């Protein structure tokens, strides 16, 4: 059984209440940092842990914290990015629902490390229940003296506020989130300046994902070196993976980074194999914006090494044959999935969620969606596939924020790895409407697992 850090007490009844959480050893990290550690010590521990941002980009958290400008007389802010809206990712929602105090504890530790006296949790607007849970947890922590003025007699003051967003995907981009938090239209800012210099209300700000912040309390309790021992290479620690799609056991799993992808998909401890005895066709390994990979490339790299669930191994091969760990939205598709339809669906999402600020993304995402819609519904032309490739290339890298890239990558990778399926849609529109392309040559390299007995009848 792999080590659990964030979800270790998930099965304790009543863990969402302060009393039970405290009994399980909760908030001891707060006691430790406030009584024995300086803010610099905390930053140093997090740096040593090698914790990388869990929101998608994988930027080292300790490094991000140390970049924070510290001018005299200017407040600093910590903002927790809980605007989780990447299709296929639902780990933060799970964590906030079940273990709100893990996040609050991490918020206190991180705020102390950064010297922030006001911190915000920006929660996606659709997550109303989670907002109430967090507000209740904050009230409980405050009543117990872990929030407010002079926490535990240390002289450190902290207030945490929960801010519901409007439900826009773009507000998960850190500068758009800050604009939205300031009460403006959620358009990403043009960088530089980065939030570490001028963020919320023009003050130095750190924006971290829920999972990154939640991990910090374990790190300060057990030491950064201890955290760095978990995982593999530069991918340290554990990661929450939201597994969905055609698998037997969808859900949120906490894995040690470095777990083989094959084991993750087929072992009973995790996804439990492909549902209904079907075969694996493709995997989107880190949320909708990362490149999709066919079965043969997700299980093994081009060099034939087994692919591991880690930042480096998943990215092995670059965009030609690799993907990214991203936010950990692991979407599995079986032989009945249609890649064209799936790509169109993602594309429709990005078209809908583009903020409309810069031209390539505003116009280009809509264009891609229309072309994909045409191919999917049997009116495509062969030249459309090349056009699609060209349009995504014009968007990628030419936009203000990474949403343009996120819209371009799934399209690019789908054409790169599944071009024959696109061509089949163009050549055989009738068959494509009625049936499915199937596995083709991305054959599942594993033997077909025996179908569950109740389906064999």
């Amino acid at each position, binding site marked *: 059984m792999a080590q659990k850090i964030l979800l270790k007490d998930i099965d304790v009844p009543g863990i969402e209440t302060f009393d039970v959480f405290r009994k399980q050893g909760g908030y001891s990290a707060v006691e430790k940092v406030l009584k024995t550690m300086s803010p610099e010590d905390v930053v140093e521990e997090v740096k040593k842990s090698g914790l990388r941002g869990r929101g998608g980009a994988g930027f080292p958290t300790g490094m991000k914290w140390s970049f924070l400008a510290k001018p005299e007389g200017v407040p600093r802010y910590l903002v927790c990015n809980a605007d989780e809206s990447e299709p296929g990712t639902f780990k933060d929602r799970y964590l906030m629902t079940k273990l709100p105090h893990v996040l609050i504890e991490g918020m206190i530790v991180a705020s102390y490390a950064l010297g922030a006296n006001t911190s915000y949790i920006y929660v996606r607007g659709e997550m109303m229940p989670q907002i109430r849970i967090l507000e209740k947890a904050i009230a409980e922590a405050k009543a117990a003296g872990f929030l407010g003025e002079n926490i535990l007699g240390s002289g450190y003051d902290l207030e945490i506020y929960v801010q519901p967003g409007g439900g826009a995907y773009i507000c998960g981009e850190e500068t758009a989130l800050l604009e939205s938090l300031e009460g403006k239209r959620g358009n990403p800012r043009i960088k530089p300046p980065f939030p570490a210099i001028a963020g919320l209300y023009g003050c130095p700000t750190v924006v971290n994902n829920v999972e990154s912040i939640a991990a910090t309390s374990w790190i300060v309790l057990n030491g950064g070196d201890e955290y760095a021992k978990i995982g593999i290479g530069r991918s340290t620690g554990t990661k929450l993976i939201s597994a969905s799609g055609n698998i037997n056991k969808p859900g949120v799993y906490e894995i040690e980074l470095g777990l083989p992808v094959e084991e993750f998909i087929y072992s009973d401890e995790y996804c439990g194999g492909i549902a209904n005895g079907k075969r694996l066709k493709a995997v989107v390994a880190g949320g909708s914006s990362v490149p999709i990979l066919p079965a043969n490339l997700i299980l093994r790299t081009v060099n034939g090494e087994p692919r591991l669930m880690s930042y480096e191994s998943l990215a092995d091969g670059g965009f030609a044959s690799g993907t990214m760990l991203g936010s950990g939205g692991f979407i599995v598709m079986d032989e009945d999935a249609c890649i064209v339809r799936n790509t169109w669906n993602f594309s429709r999402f990005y078209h*809908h969620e583009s903020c409309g600020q*810069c031209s390539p993304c505003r116009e280009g995402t809509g264009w891609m969606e229309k072309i994909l819609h045409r191919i999917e519904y049997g009116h495509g032309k062969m030249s459309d596939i090349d056009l699609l490739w060209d349009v995504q290339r014009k968007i990628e890298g030419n936009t203000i924020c990474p949403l343009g890239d996120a819209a371009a990558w799934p399209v690019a990778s789908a054409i790169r790895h599944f071009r024959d399926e696109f061509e089949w849609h163009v050549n055989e529109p009738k068959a494509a409407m009625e049936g499915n392309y199937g596995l083709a040559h991305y054959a599942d390299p594993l033997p077909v697992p025996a179908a569950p007995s109740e389906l064999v009848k």
Partner: protein
Amino acid sequence: MSEKFKVTIDNIVIEVDPGTTILNAARMIGGDIVPPAMCYYTKLQGSGGKCRTCLVKVSQGSEKDPRPMPKLVASCRTTVMDGMVVQNITSPEVIEARKGVVEILLINHPLDCPVCDQAGECHLQDLSFEHGAEQTRYEFKRRTFERIDIGDKIQLHMNRCILCYRCVFTADQITNERVHGVLNRGDASEISTYITKAVDNDFSGNMIDVCPVGALTDKTFRFKNRVWFTKPVDAHCECDKCSGKVTLWYKGEDVIRVTGRKDQYGEVQDFICNTCRFDKKKTSDWTIEKPTEIDPRSVISANHYEMEHMLPVIDKKIM
């Protein structure tokens, strides 16, 4: 600051003050190497970075850190570093990306230049002429918007808008109250007023001048004439609200339009008030200075207003 930064743009070296953007450094050199800019406006703080036509390649970040920047950058919002090497027209990658941006800007543009008052002084026209392709590859229905009325002075054609946000910044920064802004998201975003309120204040007319396309046009000039048949003349008047320095656009002996004076990049030198723009349409209101200097390559200069004899059409003696 006495210290100057040395920047190389398309192999031309120039020394500029720290804090200058790449675009402005290129404008100091001038000529073909100046990236086009649709949304950046020198006088409007915070503008730029949106249209992506001014993308350039930074092949060397600075003297100290010579690494190239990984992506193309918006030259209007990137400040120069000492020893920076920038490629604009010498980089095929930039040319390609710019062509893509122009194509993307045009896919939903109605291309109704024949009935657009902006034609002849439209930046999007220039841009597509210089960087665009002959034909679009877009085969779908173009996006359209419901027409809304934003007042008796300014005509809004949302279909032509490229969402440069210039008019939003103008309203924010030079008028006392902004009543319009961008509504909705993505390709449904539109310039609109709050519950179709009229845009009406002393400096609202400047939104027309800053608009790079025909989305905001002068209602008092609407369908009066094509700009290339009119003659621009610099003039001024005593005005207690603004500098009073304007360009008058003559058709025959009538002033049919008043605008701010624009420089070679289409940016106004001084913002003018609505009284000067919309109400003073008689020659007697103005002190004429001289014919406006127009780029000889512009369609407006094709009017040959410097000719000694007036053109027959507007010669009263013949008529």
